[in-house]
């Protein structure tokens, strides 16, 4: 057995009392490609942030032993000095700077103190770019003139320029098409030959199966197992089993007395393109329908196009060249502006409540009535504050927002209570269809249960509900039916009986790469 380059032992990391990592162990051999697998929120990225010093030494428990010595990283710079470089999912490039400048960003080649040595910068940049097959690019071109695939490669070149020994890639192929992904994976194999150790986080199990030498599976913040190529069983099914193999507990309230009625909303042939890259199709002919009293799930991996679908539907808030038809109660409607959507009784709660859902500096009442103000809480232009206060109090009780009063600022509430405020805000618009995008992201189990109860209550009141979730368990636990979305298209439709983590994963895997990629 070859030498161990990195050992992370008994790592425990908690965020305000909630354990994101619980006694995690990871051993990486020198020169291998080691994959980290797990569902969204399992703790993969947290573990890598602990390793790279994003969470400094002292904020977690456990030891990091790298090249035989125990390391205490206080900053990202500390880990980089040792040759550990992390490439995050979001690109860290400065779009208007040149390729060469980006390769050495934060690591500038200087002659005298602080003066950039351009000859050295360009020369060394070319060397670094050669590792990723980009040595023929124009070094002075702004990096935003390259496609996403090449930008991802620039990130790797940037890491190479730092004399990397251990390269960590967080979802490197999430934004890439198949061809670009293949190219990136080939480069990883190439780097491996040059002695660079890689840790890769990816949801695309076929890729992992192809390039990885061993796989560590994390579930709910705990290490489950480590599989080795050539020793253990090596297949996608085996990995899925490790990722999802936990028993269902009673985390979802039963929805009884909730008859499913007529179709409320139907969307036909919905397509849309990327807001900036006009020839990049994000959604391809999506058809869905949802009935009164029904909870329909949109399952899929991050970046599959679920949020993009919801946002483009809701007031064309995402994308361009949007086409398709929306029918409410059988009548065609327009959802060109958010106001149109609200007037046609559609509501959408964003996956990112702090950025898109709430005005954090305002109080609970003001946030709750923000969307319904014009329709229900004003006589002409004048706000009916009395009605506002009364209804805000009522909703606060109804969905159990824990706060001293409706005048508390929402920024001071916990995530779960903030989410309840967002929910109340859209319930107040008295919609027929509610699209809930990741309604329980980042909130604790108790608040989750309350949100599920609120969803059930709304369904019983005859609302049609769409739940978007990356947690497959949540889709299975709350939905009557689910569509699986992958790569911008419907990969399958599953009934309540058919719904299981395996069936969802299978839908995704089966459709992977089947799309007519440009």
């Amino acid at each position, binding site marked *: 057995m070859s030498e161990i380059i990195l050992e992370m032992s008994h790592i425990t990391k908690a965020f305000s009392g909630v354990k994101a990592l619980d006694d995690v162990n990871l051993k990486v051999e020198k020169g291998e490609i080691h994959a980290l697998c797990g569902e969204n929120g399992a703790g993969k990225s947290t573990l890598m942030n602990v390793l790279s010093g994003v969470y400094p030494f002292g904020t977690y428990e456990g030891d990091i032993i790298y090249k035989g010595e125990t390391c205490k990283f206080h900053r990202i710079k500390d880990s980089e000095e040792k040759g550990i470089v992390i490439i995050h999912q979001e690109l860290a490039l400065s779009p208007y700077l040149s390729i060469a400048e980006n390769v050495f960003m934060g690591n500038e080649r200087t002659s005298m103190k602080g003066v950039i040595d351009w000859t050295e910068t360009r020369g060394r940049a070319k060397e670094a770019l050669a590792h990723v097959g980009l040595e023929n690019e124009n070094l002075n071109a702004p990096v935003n003139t390259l496609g996403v695939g090449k930008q991802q490669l620039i990130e790797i070149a940037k890491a190479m320029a730092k004399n990397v020994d251990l390269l960590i890639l967080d979802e490197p192929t999430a934004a890439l098409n198949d061809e670009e992904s293949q190219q990136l994976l080939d480069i990883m194999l190439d780097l491996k030959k040059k002695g660079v150790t890689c840790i890769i986080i990816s949801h695309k199990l076929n890729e992992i199966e192809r390039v990885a030498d061993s796989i560590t599976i994390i579930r709910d913040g705990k290490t489950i197992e480590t599989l080795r190529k050539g020793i253990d069983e090596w297949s996608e099914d085996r990995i899925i089993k490790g990722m999802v193999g936990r028993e269902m507990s009673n985390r979802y309230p039963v929805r009884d007395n909730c008859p499913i009625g007529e179709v409320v909303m139907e969307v036909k042939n919905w397509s849309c393109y990327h807001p900036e890259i006009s020839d990049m199709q994000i959604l391809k002919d999506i058809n869905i329908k949802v009935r009164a009293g029904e909870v329909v799930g949109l399952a899929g991996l991050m970046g599959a196009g679920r949020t993009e679908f919801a946002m483009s539907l*809701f007031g064309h808030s995402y994308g361009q060249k949007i086409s398709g038809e929306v029918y409410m109660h059988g009548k065609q409607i327009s959802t060109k502006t958010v106001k149109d959507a609200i007037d046609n009784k559609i509501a959408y709660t964003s996956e990112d409540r702090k950025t*898109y859902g709430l005005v954090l500096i305002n109080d609970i009442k*003001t946030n709750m009535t923000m969307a319904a*103000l014009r329709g229900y809480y*004003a006589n002409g232009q004048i706000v009916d504050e009395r009605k506002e206060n009364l209804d805000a109090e009522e909703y606060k009780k109804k969905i159990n927002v824990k706060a001293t*009063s409706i005048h508390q600022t929402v920024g001071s509430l916990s995530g779960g209570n903030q989410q309840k405020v967002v929910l109340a805000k859209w319930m107040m618009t008295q919609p027929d269809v509610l699209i809930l995008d990741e309604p329980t992201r980042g909130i604790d189990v108790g608040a989750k249960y309350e949100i599920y109860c609120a969803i059930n209550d709304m369904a019983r009141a005859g609302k049609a509900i769409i739940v978007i979730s990356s947690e497959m368990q949540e889709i299975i636990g709350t939905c009557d039916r689910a569509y699986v979305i992958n790569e911008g298209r419907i990969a399958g439709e599953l009934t309540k009986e058919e719904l299981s983590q395996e069936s969802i994963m299978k839908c995704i895997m089966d459709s992977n790469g089947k799309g007519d990629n440009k």
Partner: protein
Amino acid sequence: MEENKKKYVNLDLKSLGMIVALVIIFIIFFVLTKGSNATPTNINNLIMQNGYIIILATGMLLCVLTGYIDLGVGSVVALGAACAAKLVVEQGWAVPLAWLVAIGIGLAVGVFAGFFIAYLDIPPFVVTLATMLMGRGLTYTLLKSLTVGPLPQNYAFIGTGFLPTIKITMGEGTLDLVCVAVAIIVSIGLIVTEMKNIRTNNKYGFANIVPWQTAVKDIVILVIVWFFFIRLGQYNGIPIQLIVLGVIVAIYQFVTSKTVAGRQIYAMGGNAKAARLSGINTKKVFFWVYVNMGVLASIAGIVLSARQGGANPKMGDGIEMDAIASCYIGGAAAAGGVGTVIGAVVGALVMGVLNNGMSMCGMSTDLQKVVKGAVLLGAVVLDVTTKKKKG
């Protein structure tokens, strides 16, 4: 369901902090000038000298609420005033008509700026820097770099006139009973509103402010009100400018706190993305905020030219900075979404009292700028640091 929550909350001192600061600054200068800053004449001057700044601060607050500023207001003040003065003095136009033209010009500049800002996404800083330069240039061209004046009495009264008075002798001077009447009306209004608030709160089970704190707050406000109106009564009664101010401030206080439009401005300033996804047309809000600023700037121009008895091309140079500073001193957040009209007015008064007091102490205008800068910075530092402690 009976709730066991406390029925009283503490007074939010932060919202009153600047009023307290204003009183303290006034008292400091009272000591330094041996009481001459509190004479009837000087109290009257405080209003007359700062009226147009208060009007500008009111409009500027809306811009600041959206998270940006309008640099062009000083030039719009000058341009509006120049047009109105020229039409009246040189063309013999009727005063109201000339004023309408001035307001029309303010509106046009506002539409111009609002269009670029809202519909072409040009940063407000750039657009209003452009209107500032263009407006100033146009004013110089229009006036051929000369002063236009003097303005007739029916123009000047809006800046210098007074309401009719009923004077009685009191001590060595006279006292205007109209002022006393206004003070009484304001006092009754304040007490009635306070009682009504308490009654509504009780009826719906909302928490009230601790009684003694309410009492102290109201007594302080009443003392200020009575002091102010008695002093005005001892001088020459109620200035017309004060009425113009009162109407504008009342309208904007109402719009910002009680209307859908006001709510939308706050929501957009607090989080534009969330506002957009809540069905608020943020472009429209942006547009009207700048149109409104243009109109108010032209009104400020009319008031200023009336007071000065003429228009000159240098008028209102740099006052956009005073208006912006007033908003920040009055507790508005540079990032947007926080601030009140009353706060901006108090901020403008703080600046006014400072200017006035320092001049009376014989401090050079150069040093006055240093003090004003320090006060602005200090007020915002205080604001930011107290917020941090809380959050």
